[in-house]
């Protein structure tokens, strides 16, 4: 696939949208989010057939060899449909981490099955507190003969309960390093966390002498690269979801009548909608721009990614919050989809760091 033209990219987004319009309807989302695994393996297989699960994996390993812009485009569609899947965890975060670590042996062993959708890999990057920063890592790795043993806790691990393989960031003698761990091995105990956003799967993993294999060398730069791509993916998800949410809200405002008028003819509602349009369009611009800069490896990529991170998180949060308000009582019911988007927005706004931290990083990237 490699870097696509703008038209090919929107064709890809449309193809994923069409599939999800069919297979990730509101009813599908509601059913899937209550299952144990939290995703639909049939749909996952179809996404794999379309090349989506291997989007950033090199062609040599069975992937599409595409980049941030394609990931962002797909995630806009996924966000709009509230797709329940390990896409972000496995196909973006873990795949990019492996690429950035550059350990050929690990890549050859893991990537082909990831691309094919047969293996789900996730990355455990935080300590118990869920901070996604260097200082937060609290798992330690001790050398035992040729291998390593891990001890400590990693929490808020995305799709931990779905993973066939764990990539764990831990402190070794020579600094942070990434380790491959079999979640079924002795010394690994994994507990699913009760998530506020039911479409999301998070796990807390305790390691007590768990056998581990070290992958690559110094790890933080690779982790940062993986988090940056994940932030771009998340920004795309947020932008796409915000837009969908605004769409169904505007639709409702045209059709709901009070005082003999469509509520959308009242300025209190109309003006909120106009402001939300500015928010969501800005989110789309920010997400696509960040993807483009990251794809180019541009000097200002960090600023662009940080900007997208907080602009998209804030836009999605505000859009869903106002959408509930604009719907009135109906949105306060479980049966209405607004809360699904509201929950996703509040969850997405915490993943990989919250807006204040991204604003700070943005400012630093501008030299301040």
């Amino acid at each position, binding site marked *: 696939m490699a870097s696509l033209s703008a038209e090919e990219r929107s064709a890809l987004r449309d193809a994923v949208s069409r599939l999800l319009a069919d297979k990730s309807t509101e009813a599908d989302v509601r059913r899937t989010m209550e299952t144990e695994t939290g995703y639909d393996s049939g749909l996952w297989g179809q996404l794999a057939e379309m090349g989506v699960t291997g989007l950033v994996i090199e062609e040599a390993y069975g992937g599409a060899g595409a980049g941030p812009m394609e990931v962002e485009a797909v995630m806009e569609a996924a966000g709009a449909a509230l797709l329940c899947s390990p896409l972000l965890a496995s196909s973006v975060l873990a795949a990019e981490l492996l690429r950035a670590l550059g350990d050929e042996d690990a890549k050859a062993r893991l990537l082909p099955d990831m691309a094919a959708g047969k293996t789900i890999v996730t990355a455990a990057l935080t300590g118990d507190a869920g901070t996604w920063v260097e200082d937060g890592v609290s798992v330690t790795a001790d050398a035992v003969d040729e291998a390593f043993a891990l001890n400590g806790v990693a929490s808020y691990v995305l799709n931990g309960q779905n993973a066939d393989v764990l990539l764990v960031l831990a402190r070794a003698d020579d600094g942070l390093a990434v380790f491959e761990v079999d979640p079924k091995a002795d010394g690994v105990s994994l507990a699913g966390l009760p998530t506020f956003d039911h479409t999301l799967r998070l796990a807390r993993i305790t390691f007590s002498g768990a056998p581990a294999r070290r992958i690559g060398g110094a790890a933080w730069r690779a982790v940062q690269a993986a988090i940056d791509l994940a932030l771009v993916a998340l920004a795309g998800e947020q932008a796409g979801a915000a837009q969908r949410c605004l769409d169904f809200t505007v639709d409702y405002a045209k059709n709901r009548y009070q005082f003999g008028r469509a509520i959308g003819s009242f300025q209190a509602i109309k003006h909120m909608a106009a402001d939300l349009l500015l928010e969501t369009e800005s989110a789309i*611009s920010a997400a696509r721009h960040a993807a483009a800069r990251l794809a180019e490896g541009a000097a200002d990529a960090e600023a662009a990614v940080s900007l997208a991170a907080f602009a998209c998180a804030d836009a999605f949060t505000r859009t869903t919050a106002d959408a509930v308000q604009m719907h009135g009582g109906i949105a306060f019911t479980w049966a209405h989809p607004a809360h699904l988007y509201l929950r996703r927005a509040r969850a997405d706004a915490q993943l990989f760091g919250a807006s204040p931290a991204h604003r700070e990083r943005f400012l630093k990237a501008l030299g301040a």
Partner: protein
Amino acid sequence: MTQAAPVTDEALREEVRAWLADNWKGLPRSGGGAGWTASPEQKAWLAKVVEARWAVPRWPAAWLGRGLSDAQARIIEREFAAAGAPGAGQDRTNLWANTLLACGTEALKQKLVLPLLRQEVGMCLLYSEPGAGSDLAGIRTRAERVGDHFVVNGQKVWTSGAATADYGMLIARTDWDVPKHKGISFFFLPMKQPGVEVRPLRQITDESHFNEVFITDAIVPAENLLRDLGDGWSVLQTALAYERSVMGESARGGRSGAAESKTEEPLIALAREAGALGDPLLRQDLAQAIAYKRLNALNTARAKADLAQGSSSPVMSLGKLAMSRILHEEARVRTAILGAASLLEGPDHPRSEDANFLALNAYFTSIGGGTDQIQRNIIGERVLGLPREPEVDRDIPFREVRSGR
């Protein structure tokens, strides 16, 4: 549209560059603030730009243009911008010339298009009245046909640049017996005549760019009527659309003349200079204010890319609203950086002067050219397709419409 011979992007870029290299020698700085009238040097430069057909390249060749696509015209604009040379891209920004070209009589076009592009004639907008601001269709200034001209009576207000203008784009009521939008006509009113009295108004910024205009038996030739009698509302919509898109892209800087950093975001430079860059709360505000600016630039870039691909983008209509958010927020953060120093003004306190001026002048964008509220109505109705607001006076003869302040 008259089509010039097709030219490749590369050839066009080379041609502009070469022409700029031969002709652009810079202009003397026209001392402080926004110039409301062009200097002789500026006019001479503009005349050259127009003659070389860089001013309005999207326009047809018959009217000083090149019949170029939007994408190619932007190449010219980018080269001019890179050289710091003004005058290109007037087919996007010159609302007077565009309105005239789109709606004017042949005679009026022959007379004024060229002088407008060269900024040899000054213009103003005679729209607002004491009783008709957001609701421009409520105007009461009247124009009556007498032989080959119209006689105008009424009062306009908030008229920017009226004191120096040669013509005003005037909306006046020509029929009182039809509903309010249907009885309005649009004229180019000569300003320098005994029937037009301009009185400056002192603004909150302590400047006097806008004025009251009292019109008593003023004369406007019939050839200065744009489109047909009673068709003024449609001309006004064309003119307002140009005005709003220009306001979405440009904004005045401070007025103290204090130098701002060219390499660093001005807000960051200011915070650094004030020793406030370490304040974590302020840093959050700084990031957000800068983000608003960047997001607007990204939106504009995306809208242009969409346009180049032939699809229009809703983002285009968001610029003015975004700009007023940017300006108010930037002024707020500047004030926060300065703290107590913002209590002061005068030449010894240029930073405060700028912050306070920007705080006041931000209303230029959020009120002028239609308020933010009206802009939200427009976005809600025309972009999002929400139902129009009921208007109690839409279908009754204007004579019977209730007024009052």
